[in-house]
Every structure is written in structure tokens, then in C-alpha cells.
């Protein structure tokens, strides 16, 4: 295991007018033993960052260091990294056992046969695939395949595990199971993980650090809690949270009661306000209401109920307890906690 550092790394695909800046001057330190999740929508440069570290792409500029040594001129094999792909992860012509043995038989390792068998059995036990070892790779279910492909990464002791949305092609139940297992594995091994996803639940539940990418730039890096509570921009704020954060123009919070007060307290230059659903409090006698709003729609989800409120011409979503007794058309008093203020560029203002 090792610390992995990226210094000012850039990568552009294509040339001329059609070129795309996939990764733009990224500085990133992945501490030894941490679980770093890169978060961002499609095209943000997450996978490219991963591939740059793996050596499947070469950086246009910048330096990549593993355990303090630059690896930019090393081949993928020499970098001693392990990678789990989103799909097509197993060699289809080999059995599960041979898939697991594949990295150990490589000319770089050339492990002895007895050691290979021992290592495979250990990993298979951890991943609960011992009874599938003799199956062909194509005879597995999606969850088993991904388990084996994680196993193929685990058989070695690489400097870093690179995971490219390994759970995204699985169904929801399997995903939540494997999520826990992965986190457990990482903690037990003390391994360094760099994990790419656009799934915010994966980011929140597994990460020790989250890096948010936007168009090839690393816009914020911190613990999941920091990113959630203290986003540097509107973009970062909307990466995490379900239901999503409500972004409304400050001017729409202008109606009755205490509105002037709320607006007056806002810092200078604010154009929009970000309100987490849990920070929009409805009909709480203990809090000063800021304004009143109309219930537009109610979504009962069982454990909670989503309330769509209309204020001015905006709709905001909040959560109430399921037995609130509210119906469409009710007028409610709303108070706001921890508002996040953003300026016209979407940057955080405080």
C-alpha cells in the first residue's frame, strides 16, 4: 500500500477544434490507507484520472507518484496497481480460478503454483466464491462476476486499488451488499482505494475522502461530511444529497412574515440560495418562520414523506414525517436552517 500523488496532471483527447480537455491540472493526494471517491457526472474526467494512474493513458503534463516515486514513464504492469472495471471485467475464456490466477502468473510476479493456489483460496474465502472456482467466467451472475473481478485485484498486493464504477451495472440490492463488503475489505486490509462513481450513496457511505470533479478540474476535496455541509460551489452542493438540494433565486424568498430579515442577513452578492431538504422546516412552533408556502404535491415514501412547496414561482422539496396530516393546497409556515449562499457564478458566499 502506498500514497499516490498527482501533481498538476492534464490530459487532452483529440486535437484542434474537436479536442476535449478530459483532465485539467489536477492536484490530488490519496493518503495511504484511505478510501478516496471521485465524484462527478459523465465526462467530468473521473475515469480518465483513474486510467492515468493505471498507466492506460499517458498524461500530457504533470507528474504521478506512487510511494514517492514518479511512475509516468512506467508501463501499467510496472506500476503495481490493480483495477476493477465497470464491466467486461473477467476473461471470458478462463475459469474463475484461472481468472484469479492470471495476475499471479504474470511475468512480473511468476508466483509458484502452490502459492497461487493458496492465495486464490484465501481470496475466494473472503469473497465467498469458493464454490464457484471451477465455473467458467461466463457462467456467473452479475454480482458473482464483479466479486471475482474484485478478487482478481485482491490476489496481489498492489500499491493502490483503482475501481471504475464497479457496482454500477448491478441491481440495487446487490449494490448495497457489495458496497458494505468493499468498505469492510478496504478497512480490514488497510488498502488504498481510488473509487470512481457518480452514485452519491457510494460516495457518502464508503469514502474517507471525496474529490468532486467538474469538467476535468478537481473542485473540492475533503471528507464526505465536509463536502456535504460545506460545499465550495453550487455544483458541488448538488452532487450530494437525496432529494437533491433546492437551489432557488434569493428573490423568490421575498414574500410575507420574516422575509426581509432573511434576505437582509444574506451576504452581499448572493443571487441563489441552496437549501437541503432536511433544513427546510415546516410548521415548527419552536422556530421563527421565514415565510409561508403552499403545499403543491405530496409524495409518501413510507418512512418519510416528500413535500413539494411552492414559493413565488419556485418549487422546493422538503421532508416531513409521514403522519403530518398535510394535504395538497395547505398553507404552511416555513423556517430555514443552514442556508448555503451562492453568487452569480455559482460560487459559495459566506
Amino acid at each position, binding site marked *: 500500500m502506498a500514497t499516490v500523488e498527482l501533481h498538476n496532471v492534464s490530459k487532452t483527447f483529440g486535437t484542434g477544434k474537436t479536442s476535449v480537455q478530459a483532465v485539467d491540472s489536477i492536484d490530488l493526494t490519496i493518503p495511504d490507507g484511505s478510501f478516496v471517491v471521485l465524484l462527478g457526472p459523465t465526462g467530468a474526467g473521473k475515469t480518465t484520472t483513474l486510467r492515468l494512474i493505471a*498507466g492506460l493513458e499517458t498524461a500530457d503534463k504533470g507528474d504521478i507518484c506512487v510511494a514517492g516515486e514518479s511512475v509516468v514513464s512506467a508501463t501499467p504492469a510496472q506500476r503495481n496497481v490493480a*483495477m476493477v*472495471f465497470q464491466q*467486461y471485467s473477467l476473461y471470458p*475464456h478462463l475459469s474463475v480460478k484461472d481468472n484469479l490466477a*492470471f495476475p499471479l502468473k504474470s511475468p*512480473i*510476479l511468476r508466483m509458484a503454483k502452490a502459492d497461487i493456489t493458496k492465495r486464490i483460496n484465501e481470496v475466494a474465502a473472503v469473497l465467498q466464491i469458493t464454490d464457484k472456482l471451477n465455473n467458467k467466467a461466463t457462467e456467473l451472475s452479475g454480482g458473482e462476476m464483479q466479486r471475482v473481478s474484485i478478487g482478481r485485484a485482491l490476489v496481489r498486493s498492489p500499491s493502490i486499488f483503482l475501481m471504475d464504477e464497479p457496482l454500477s451495472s448491478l441491481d440495487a440490492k446487490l449494490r448495497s451488499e457489495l458496497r458494505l463488503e468493499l468498505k469492510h475489505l478496504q478497512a480490514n486490509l488497510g488498502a488504498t482505494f481510488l473509487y470512481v462513481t457518480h452514485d452519491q450513496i457510494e460516495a457518502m457511505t464508503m469514502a474517507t475522502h471525496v474529490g468532486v470533479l467538474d469538467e476535468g478540474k478537481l473542485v473540492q476535496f475533503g471528507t464526505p461530511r465536509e463536502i456535504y455541509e460545506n460545499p465550495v460551489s453550487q455544483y458541488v452542493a448538488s452532487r450530494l444529497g437525496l432529494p437533491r438540494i433546492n437551489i432557488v433565486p434569493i428573490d423568490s424568498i421575498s414574500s410575507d412574515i420574516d422575509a426581509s430579515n432573511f434576505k437582509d442577513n444574506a451576504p452581499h452578492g448572493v443571487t441563489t440560495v441552496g437549501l437541503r431538504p432536511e433544513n427546510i422546516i415546516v410548521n415548527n412552533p419552536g422556530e421563527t418562520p421565514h415565510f409561508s408556502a403552499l403545499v403543491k404535491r405530496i409524495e409518501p415514501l413510507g418512512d418519510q414523506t416528500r413535500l413539494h412547496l411552492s414559493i413565488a414561482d419556485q418549487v422546493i422539496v422538503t421532508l416531513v414525517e409521514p403522519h403530518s396530516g398535510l394535504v395538497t393546497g395547505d398553507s404552511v409556515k416555513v423556517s430555514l436552517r443552514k442556508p448555503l449562499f451562492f453568487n452569480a457564478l455559482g460560487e459559495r458566499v459566506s
Partner: protein
Amino acid sequence: MSYSITDPSKRQKRVAAFLVIAYAMITLVPLLWVFMTGFKTPPDSISYPPKIFSEPSLEGYVNLFTTRTRVTPERLAELPPPENFAQEIVRNRDMVIAGKSKYGARFLNSVIIGFGSTFLSIFLGTLAAYAFSRFKIPLKDDLLFFILSTRMMPPIAVAIPIFLMYRKIGLSDTHLGMILLYTAVNISLAVWLLKGFIDEIPREYEEAALIDGYTRFQAFYKVVLPQAATGIASTAIFCLIFAWNEYAFAVLLTTGTAQTAPPFIPTIIGVGGLDWPAMAAGATLFLLPVLVFTVLLRKHLLRGITFGAVRK
């Protein structure tokens, strides 16, 4: 009863079966005729009206592999009794076996040239197809078009220049010359077919192998090749069938040492008229290797033909 709208009805199945069988019969009749003629005696083979069934005889096969001389009945009577069935058959025609025919050697030439050129086409074709599929090559599309353009005329159109060139550089009537020639014709087919197959193999497999500690070539060898096996097998069949059956170049460029079976078979002329059973026997035996090869690889062939038609 289970019913699905995409399942053909019983009647449709019967009609389909009838059509398939009828088509198979039509295409198989000439083959069957050749096969049966091989087991007829020369008089039966040319009798009029034609005999469909006749007493089976191995005379055609004996004639195919031997050369014979006519002897006088007195001389025949002096000979010791025939040692085997072949001698017996020949003596019934007032002849004795004088030696081996050239069929065995010609057949061996066909094997060497057919399989040699198939191997070379596949070997070069796979490497080229992999490069075209995976690497950035300047003028890639033009090169691919150029390779294909060699198929845009009948190969025999360049027979005269090739004949002259081969004579000049000493490749006429050599195994190497024929292997190179058939490889040149087949390689465009091989590159295009194999490129299609390799394009369908996700790059992730090779990337995984690279990360797992293998070099590019090892990744190609250990991961890409096994998965391209289907494509390679079906391409090999197409290449072999072409090289095996090729007639025009073989007639023109080979006369002796490297002559293949196709130009040789029609030259089997018996004593006093064409020896149809011997020719038919030669043709029947000539079909066998391709038949065996195709049967062995038939699963791949079928998958190869329909490959890419259905998204997995």
C-alpha cells in the same frame, strides 16, 4: 400448450423442413453422382441410359493410384496368381500394374500449399487486423481500402504478369510460390474478416491484462487470441476452401513438382477413353480434407457467419 408469437407453427416448420431438404438434395446430387461414379466400373460409368445403381467396384480407386500396362493374354497367363485385390482388378482388364500414379504426390502438394497458405494468411491477417483494430495508424482507412481493392478484380486478370514475374524470379512451379500467391489473394479477406471480429472484443480485457502485469504482446496472445478463436476458425475455413479449390492459377503456374490436385485430376486419362471412375475417385478423396476441416470447425463457422448480427 405454450404459445409464442415468434414460434413457427407446426405447418410452417414442416414447410421449412421440406424446403431445406429439397435444397440440400439439389445441391447434393452432383456430389452424390461423383461419389457413386467413383465406385462404378468404367463401362458402367459411361453406359447409356445411365445406370444409377450398379455393382460397386474399387476399379476407379485402383486406377487412380496406379499406372498400368496392357499385356497379351499369353503373358497374363504366365504370371503368378495376383497378390491382392488391386492386381486382380487390373488383370481382369488384361493389364498389369506398372507403378504408382502421381495422384498421391499431387494430393500432398495440395495439402502443403492449401494449409500453408491458410496458416500464413491467418498469421499475417490476425496481426494486421489487430493493429488496424487497436492502433492509430496514419491513413488507416486508405490502407484498409487498398487491401480490399486487391479483391476488386478477378485474380486471374493478373495471371499473365504473375506468370512472367514468377518465371523470372524462379517461383514458377514451387510450393513457396503457390503459398505466397494464395496468401496474397486471401489476406485481404482475412484482414477484413478478422478486424471485424477483433473490433468486437472489448479493449477492457487487454487493459485488464496490461494492469495484471502482462506486456502488450502477451495480452494479445493470452487474452485476444483465445477470444478471436471463433473468427480465426471461420476465416481459416474460407481461406482453405479458396486455396484448396483454386484451379486457374494452379493450371498456369504449376506443371510438376508443385502441381496441386485440381489441375491433375482432369488429366487422369485411361487407356482407350476417359477413365471417369478414376477421376471421380480422385475428386471424392480430394473433397475429404476440406470436409473434415469444416466439420471440425463447423460450430465456429456458423457462429462466424452470424457474428455481429445480434448484439449480446
